[in-house]
């Protein structure tokens, strides 16, 4: 163990490096976009919020930076951190490295909510609200099944998640089947692929506080997640209230997942791949892993979103890029850790 630790960078240094990479990417993301702004203009506009600088740019430039790029960068960072952290938490408490944040049916439920709102021709804000509400409903149903069965074991919870996801997926299929193929169906499909194209400053502000609180909560109970990853029996032996901390972890992770899906649609692979990458960097201790997931997830999502809005004239859905980048990356991770897995 000590030899393995020697190969890794010291944890504080690693976190500083990751934070530095994130900050640098944020800065770069400000410079990139379809609207042409010179680096000097970008720097001046950003600094003008702090220092009195005579504006040599038009009002549109400020709209671009502060109403389009900034909310988008912030949303990408929050969502990446949220999905990666939620994924790491679920993988810890369910003791399954393949679990993702939508394991309890969040994505399926949110997709139904969004699809219904699209079919009803509701506004984009209502689409997000419906996605949020139905995502929560899906998780509530999933967590209610063990209570009805009077068996709150992890196995039953996993099975409940599978069943609810399956039912909601079938309902989603019905919705897509009856949707107008020329109008509603393309909108539903595009929403499901994930995008931060129209994210607003207000939306980011609305989700940032609950997301940050949830992230802090998960970091706070990271030691208990370590214990829970040993199993229910072992946790009881150590004196940890397994159900209580599992409940807290599920609530916080669900909040992270459902808020992410509500504003950006369904985005896969972040919640699976980033925890594994983080384990390679910092090990399996959740006290180090969860904060590292915040940073690695944020970095990954920021890179993906920056590519999505700059690679081609048309916006590339985020789910497409996370799959194209995340899946091979995940295979590489598995390959690298194949000896340990065997």
């Amino acid at each position, binding site marked *: 163990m000590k030899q393995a630790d020697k190969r890794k960078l010291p944890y504080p240094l690693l976190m500083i490096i990751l934070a530095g990479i994130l900050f640098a990417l944020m800065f770069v993301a400000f410079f990139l976009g379809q*609207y042409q702004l010179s680096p000097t203009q970008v720097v001046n506009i950003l600094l003008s919020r702090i220092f009195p600088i005579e504006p040599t740019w038009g009002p549109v430039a400020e709209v671009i930076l502060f109403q389009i790029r900034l909310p988008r960068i912030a949303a990408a960072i929050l969502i990446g951190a949220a999905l990666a952290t939620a994924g790491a938490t679920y993988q810890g408490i369910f003791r399954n490295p393949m679990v993702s944040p939508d394991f309890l049916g969040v994505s399926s439920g949110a997709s139904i909510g969004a699809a219904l709102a699209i079919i009803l*021709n509701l506004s984009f804000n209502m689409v997000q609200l419906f996605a949020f509400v139905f995502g929560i409903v899906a998780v509530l149903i999933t967590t209610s099944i063990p209570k009805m069965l009077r068996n709150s074991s992890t196995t039953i919870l996993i099975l409940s998640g599978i069943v609810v996801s399956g039912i909601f997926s079938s309902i989603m299929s019905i919705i897509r089947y009856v949707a107008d193929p*020329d109008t509603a169906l393309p909108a539903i499909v595009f929403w499901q692929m994930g995008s931060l*194209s129209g994210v607003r400053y207000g939306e980011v502000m609305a989700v940032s506080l609950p997301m940050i609180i949830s992230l802090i909560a998960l970091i706070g109970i990271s030691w208990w997640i370590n214990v829970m990853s040993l199993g229910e029996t072992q946790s009881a032996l150590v004196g940890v209230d397994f159900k209580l901390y599992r409940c807290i972890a599920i609530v916080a992770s669900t909040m992270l997942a459902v808020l992410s899906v509500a504003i950006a649609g369904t985005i896969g692979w972040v919640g699976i791949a980033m925890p594994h990458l983080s384990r390679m960097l910092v090990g399996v201790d959740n006290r180090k892993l969860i904060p590292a997931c915040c940073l690695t997830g944020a970095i990954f999502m920021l890179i993906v979103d920056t590519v999505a809005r700059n690679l081609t004239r048309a*916006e590339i859905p985020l789910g497409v890029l996370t799959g194209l980048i995340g899946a091979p990356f995940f295979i590489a991770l598995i390959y690298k850790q194949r000896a340990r897995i065997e």
Partner: protein
Amino acid sequence: MKKRKLLALFLAAMMLVALLTACVGEAPQTGLGTPAAQPGSQPAQPAPPPSPPAEDPADDPMDEPEPEPEPPTERLIIDQLGREVVVPYVVTSIATAHNPSQSMAAAIGGVDVVATGRGGNSIFDLIAPHIADLPTVTGGGGAGAFNLEVLGELLPDVFIFPSGRYDTTVPYMDMFDIPAVAIHPQCVDSILETVEILGAVFNRQEHAAAVAEAFQGHINVVAERLVGAEHTPTAVVLGNSVSSVHSNGQLQAEIIVMAGAENVAADVEGRSHVDVGLEQMLAWDPEYIFITAWGGAISVDEVLAEERFAHLQAIQNGNVFRFPSPNDWWDTASICSGLAVMWAAHIMHPDLISDEELETAVLEFYYLLYGMEISREFLGF
């Protein structure tokens, strides 16, 4: 262990029985007793004319008049995929699972030939309310899903479908020997072709020619007037969000160009509307923003209220418009696309196309199509 072996044997036997039953069962017969055609096969050749009665040498040809030739029972037409399709000589009923196809068929063949219903707001609520109660053959989900029992019950004379749905339409029509006519009204030229084909289907070539002439006339008058236009404004057609635009090649893009605009999204490729992002919209800064008639999730007010668009010329000047009509979309695959060109030209060049001229053209055209007066209020332009 013995019980498990017995159970496994039992399950295997059940599977074998099911497999044999499926394999031995007879192939389903088609409703008309003819074998089902394979997809892509040519339709049946025209039936040979009935042979004349054998001549009796004892008959005096001067005593009895020549028997009149049998009236033709079928006609051969070429659809928009280039297929030869045999349709009844007199078409009294058509079915379709595609709203634009139904609209165009009703415009050329008359509302009485429409045998299938449709949902949602449409001009049929006014001109043929009974259509809402007609059965629909679509099984849901649009492309490719048919309610075969309804189709078998209806047995329309002709089934009209968009050419892109060939693989998911023709095999089912072949099951019932229903002639399937493909149309492709996706651009101005192909709309004219569709009108001609439908005229042939319904044997109303004169009416179709009049409609085509009027349609072309709407476009020609705009083209002639634009010769003197001093300014070519920039414009874009939104899809289902404020950052989604209709790609190049879409009928909506063609309409605004024909109406005398420069389409800022001319180099955006795609099959439908494409999300280009808000930055791109700001970079383009179009003078006019059009919203497609069906609108999706956005409205004119929402676009005008979009704070990030506050500096766009179109927003500052209030030049955000939705294509008519809420009850008969002019900017989709429609015989009224020529009116859309006139309307857009009137919006962007009011000095070249007056409101009175537009109104007269619209009302006269709808009278030509449906034989009844339809108010401007209903059409909403």
